């Protein structure tokens, strides 16, 4: 079977689909044409000051790296002030071409901070465009520099202010933890004082900039040389050479807005955030910007600014945030520098780094302003023990001297000054809190001697202390036995030595006596008081007592010797050496050497029944033991009495002159003398008489010849009055010490002739009496001579007696009678004499009365020689 193929009827196509191709081409062509017309570009004219670096056809206009136009022509402007550059801008640039659009030329710039526009090296300089708003416009004035804001860069533009530009420049980088995060894009002077810099922070880092960020200059190298080494810090090479800024931010703060303003600090230290406040001082001595504020050796802040005020200097200071809570209303700030002393250099590094400001926290709310103190405040005044020490004089303790205990410093001396009465030195010292318990109520202090040399028979010991003791001195605490801790402001003593302290405390166990002495006796405070050559006390003070014109000598005697001071105690002054030479031998008594040097006093005891004076200091042992009683005599100034001259009664020594002083009137001398105790009462009656006994050499002989050797002495005549006294007026002429059995009478003559005191009265050639004294009679017409007849001869003289002058040789030469020479004894020839002859026997009736007076005849009558009554001795 054959199958018939059905014929395929193919309808002839009128148009092949291939015709779409030319259609497409036409459409494409049209489109291309329209597009090319549309995209033909926009003609823009820009006025540049110079066409340097701009080439026609070569210089492109770029926006964000995209070529948006091209220089098509350059022509000089009409005023010949610049060039007009014609640009053919991409049609897409149309929206950019507005009033505020900016054009500037980018040239390759290789600077330290980086190479900018390096692309321009190959592509040639290009014109950058920064779109702006406003009306559409086709003529522009070119910018001379890239505008502050980087075109098209999203980021943060902030303002920074600084006093000086330093090494910052446009392009200087801004670092955050040493990562460059931005750069300075412009700067200009704001007013005449401040420089305003604009900085750009890249988008990805904008969150790092906070409202309270701190910017500081990291330009160059920071070399921190201290004793701990040299630290060199630099942010980056570019910051060394081209400057740079770094900043830090707190975590929690708000992010900064565009245009936020910051201050540039000189260094990180200054910039670090913190609490700002001011310190005031009168002068900016050691503090300056950058001076650290230190608390317990840790830098907690610094001074960020210094400026003058009317009254002084004001520092702006900052304390780091983490230490901000330390600041309080009672905080103190004070300057502290290096401390150079012989004890060493403290804080030597401050010699180089300068002073620091020390800080002490306090309590309360922080203040805005604090005074900057010159010296450290008394920080822990509360816990310190303040004491005041008194001393008689300053053993070289200066302010700042250490107070030591067991050679360990426990405090220091704060001040040294005289006390108010100017009698001693007062120290204010402080004991550091940890040692306050060492000081108790009877503690005392002694100065440390830097060099103490002790020479004894055992050898020489030399002790030295450290050098600071030598210069500033130091005092040591000697603890007392008391268990009571000393209170604040307690008054304690500073003794010059341990011995002095011992003395002082000894004295507390002493009782005092006051001795009276006519002189200072060479004693001084500290002179020892001995008993049997053992020291039992010492002299405290020697004072002049004006009321009784004596010296008061205060002595103290240790309590244990109190029994020695009783009614029969006496005190005398020791002579350094007493030599007692007699035929029985020589006794030399040497006082203890200390007493010899300083003078000393000895306590002695009299016999038990004797009563001694405990208020008088005797000149010598003998005086004391003799219980000498002082008297005062006044003599004419011409007496030649000297100390030690004896007072004698009938040749017996009953006292001695202690001292002879010429009175101020120059006509008299005062004589201090002693009467030996046992005799004193006999010679201190009101009517007792003292007189000078001096050697009298005459033809009649020498009276009181012993005085030729011993010097004149004082004679005394006891009185009978019951009234006692101690002051006497002395006489120059010896007082007649009439014996009881003496027959006393008066002779009268017109002329004294050769009669002298002592002229003998001769009876038959035997001296029976003498002239005791003579005087001019009150009437002035005769001379009265007082005479006496010794007791055993008194019966030889009565009212019938006749007296004549025997003196000399009587030569009677008569023309007729011849020569007659009549002499008495040789003595009477030399010394004169008074002859006496009695007519009758002495009877009771014709006995002489006490006021009997005779005329002294010139010569013997012949008849008198015949008188020879038998006298009966009355014995």
């Amino acid at each position, binding site marked *: 079977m054959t199958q018939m193929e059905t014929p395929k009827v193919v309808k002839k196509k009128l148009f*092949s689909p291939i015709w779409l191709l030319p259609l*497409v*081409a036409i459409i494409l062509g049209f489109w*291309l044409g329209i597009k090319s017309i549309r995209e033909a570009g926009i003609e823009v004219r820009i006025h540049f000051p110079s066409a340097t670096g701009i080439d026609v056809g070569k210089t492109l206009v770029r926006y964000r790296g995209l070529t948006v136009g091209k220089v098509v022509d350059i022509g000089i402007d009409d005023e010949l002030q610049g060039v007009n550059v014609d640009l053919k801008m991409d049609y897409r640039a149309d929206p950019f071409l507005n009033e505020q659009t900016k054009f500037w030329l980018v040239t390759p710039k290789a600077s330290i901070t980086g190479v900018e526009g390096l692309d321009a090296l190959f*592509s*040639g300089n290009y014109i950058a465009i920064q779109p702006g708003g406003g009306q559409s416009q086709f003529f522009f004035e070119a910018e001379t520099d890239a505008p502050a804001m980087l075109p098209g860069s999203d980021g943060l533009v902030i303002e920074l202010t600084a006093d000086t530009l330093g090494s910052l420049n446009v392009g200087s980088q801004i670092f955050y933890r040493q990562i460059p995060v931005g750069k300075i894009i412009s700067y200009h002077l704001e007013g005449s004082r401040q420089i305003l810099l604009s900085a750009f922070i890249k988008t990805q880092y904008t969150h790092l900039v906070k409202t309270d960020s701190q910017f500081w200059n990291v330009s160059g190298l920071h070399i921190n040389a201290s004793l701990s080494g040299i630290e060199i810090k630099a942010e980056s090479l570019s910051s060394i050479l081209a400057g740079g800024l770094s900043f830090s931010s707190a975590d929690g703060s708000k992010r900064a807005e565009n245009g936020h303003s910051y201050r540039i600090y000189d260094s990180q230290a200054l910039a670090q955030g913190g609490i700002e406040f001011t310190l005031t001082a009168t002068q900016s001595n050691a503090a300056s910007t950058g001076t650290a504020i230190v608390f317990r050796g840790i830098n907690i802040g610094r001074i960020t600014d210094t400026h003058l005020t009317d009254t002084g200097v004001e520092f702006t200071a900052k304390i780091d945030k983490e230490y901000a809570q330390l600041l309080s209303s009672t905080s103190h700030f004070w300057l502290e520098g290096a401390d150079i002393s012989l004890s060493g250099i403290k804080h030597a590094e401050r010699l180089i780094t300068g002073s620091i400001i020390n800080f002490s926290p306090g309590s309360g709310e922080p203040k805005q302003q604090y005074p900057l103190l010159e010296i450290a405040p008394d920080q822990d005044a509360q816990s310190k023990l303040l004491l005041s020490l008194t001393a008689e004089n300053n053993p070289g303790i200066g302010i700042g001297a250490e107070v030591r205990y067991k050679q360990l410093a426990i405090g220091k001396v704060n001040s040294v000054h005289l006390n108010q009465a100017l009698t001693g030195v007062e120290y204010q010292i402080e004991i550091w809190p940890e040692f306050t318990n060492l000081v108790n109520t009877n503690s005392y202090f002694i100065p440390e001697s830097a060099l103490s040399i002790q020479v004894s028979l055992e050898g020489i010991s030399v002790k030295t202390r450290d050098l600071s003791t030598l210069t500033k001195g130091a005092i040591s605490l000697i603890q007392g036995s008391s268990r009571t801790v000393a209170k604040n402001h307690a008054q304690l003593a500073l003794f010059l030595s341990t011995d002095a302290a011992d003395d002082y405390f000894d004295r507390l166990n002493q009782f005092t006596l006051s001795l009276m002495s006519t002189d200072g006796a060479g004693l001084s405070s500290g002179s020892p008081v001995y008993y049997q050559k053992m020291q039992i006390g010492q002299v405290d003070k020697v004072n002049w007592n004006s009321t009784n014109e004596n010296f008061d000598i205060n002595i103290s005697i240790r309590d244990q010797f109190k029994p020695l001071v009783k009614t029969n105690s006496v005190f005398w002054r020791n002579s350094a050496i007493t030599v007692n030479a007699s035929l029985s031998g020589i006794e030399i008594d040497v006082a203890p050497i200390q007493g010899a040097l300083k003078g000393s006093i000895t306590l002695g005891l009299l016999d038990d029944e004797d009563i001694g004076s405990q208020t008088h200091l005797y000149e010598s042992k003998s005086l004391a033991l003799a219980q000498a009683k002082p008297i005062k005599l006044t003599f004419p100034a011409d007496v030649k009495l000297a100390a030690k001259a004896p007072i004698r009664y009938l040749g017996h020594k009953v006292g001695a002159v202690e001292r002879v002083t010429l009175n101020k009137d120059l006509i008299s001398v005062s004589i201090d003398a002693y009467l030996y105790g046992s005799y004193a009462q006999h010679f201190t009656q009101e009517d007792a008489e003292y007189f000078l006994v001096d050697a009298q050499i005459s033809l009649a002989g020498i009276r009181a010849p012993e005085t030729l050797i011993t010097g004149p002495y004082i004679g005394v005549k006891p009185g009978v009055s019951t009234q006692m006294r101690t002051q006497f007026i002395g006489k120059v002429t010896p007082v007649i010490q009439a014996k009881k059995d003496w027959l006393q009478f008066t002779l009268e003559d017109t002329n004294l002739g050769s009669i002298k005191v002592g002229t003998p009265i001769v009876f038959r050639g035997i001296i029976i009496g003498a002239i005791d004294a003579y005087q001019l009679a009150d009437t002035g017409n005769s001379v009265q001579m007082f005479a006496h007849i010794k007791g055993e001869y008194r019966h030889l003289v009565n009212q019938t007696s006749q007296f004549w002058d025997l003196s000399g040789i009587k030569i009677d030469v008569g023309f007729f009678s011849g020569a007659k020479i009549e002499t008495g004894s040789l003595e009477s020839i030399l010394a004169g004499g008074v002859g006496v002859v009695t007519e009758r026997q002495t009877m009771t009736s014709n006995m002489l009365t006490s006021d009997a007076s005779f005329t002294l005849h010139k010569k013997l009558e012949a008849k008198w020689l015949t008188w020879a009554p038998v006298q009966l001795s009355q014995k």
Partner: protein
Amino acid sequence: MTSPAEPPRKNQGKDLGLTLCPSCQQLMAHKKTHCSRCGSTLAFRDYSSLQKSWALLITAAILLIPANIYPITIFTSQGQTRHDTIFTGITHLIDLDILPIAVILFTASILVPILKIGGLTIYLLAISFRLPISKKSLMVGFHVIEWIGRWSMLDLFVISITAAVVNMGQLLDAKPGPAATAFALVILLTQVAAKVLDTRLLWDRLESKDDTNGNTKSS
């Protein structure tokens, strides 16, 4: 089915009722629609090819305009960028006194495409409108166009080589411009236009020059 009355003295395949498979060149009876060997669609004469050729030719002619207006190369030398159209390129070469290259470039880039398009237009016109052109000159022209057509790719070849080799950024760089694409399309389209044309139509035309060419319709 039997074919209609056939002219006896015809020596063409169609006269003999035979046709050639365009793919495998098997001689087949033209009544068959598909080649018995390779299964290709058989056509006695492809009259649509004339339309296709025309369309392609017109497209090429249109594209010749942008190919000459737009820059064919973007040449950057030391930051300076030159946008050269074909013509400005040639004038540039002339300016540089490289005349032989300018001649070659002119021939390859301007002369040849225009000649080719012009030549093809003439042929198509000759086929479509039976223009009285001598058979011999048509044959010569056809061979010339065919031979010369391949040289017009020279320009593109140079551009592509240059673009590949000279690539030193801002220092020295050459890139094909938008005209290159158009130019390439012109060349391609003229080639395709020449290729797609069923040349048998031309031969028919040349054959029927002597006698009547009344057989224009066939299935």
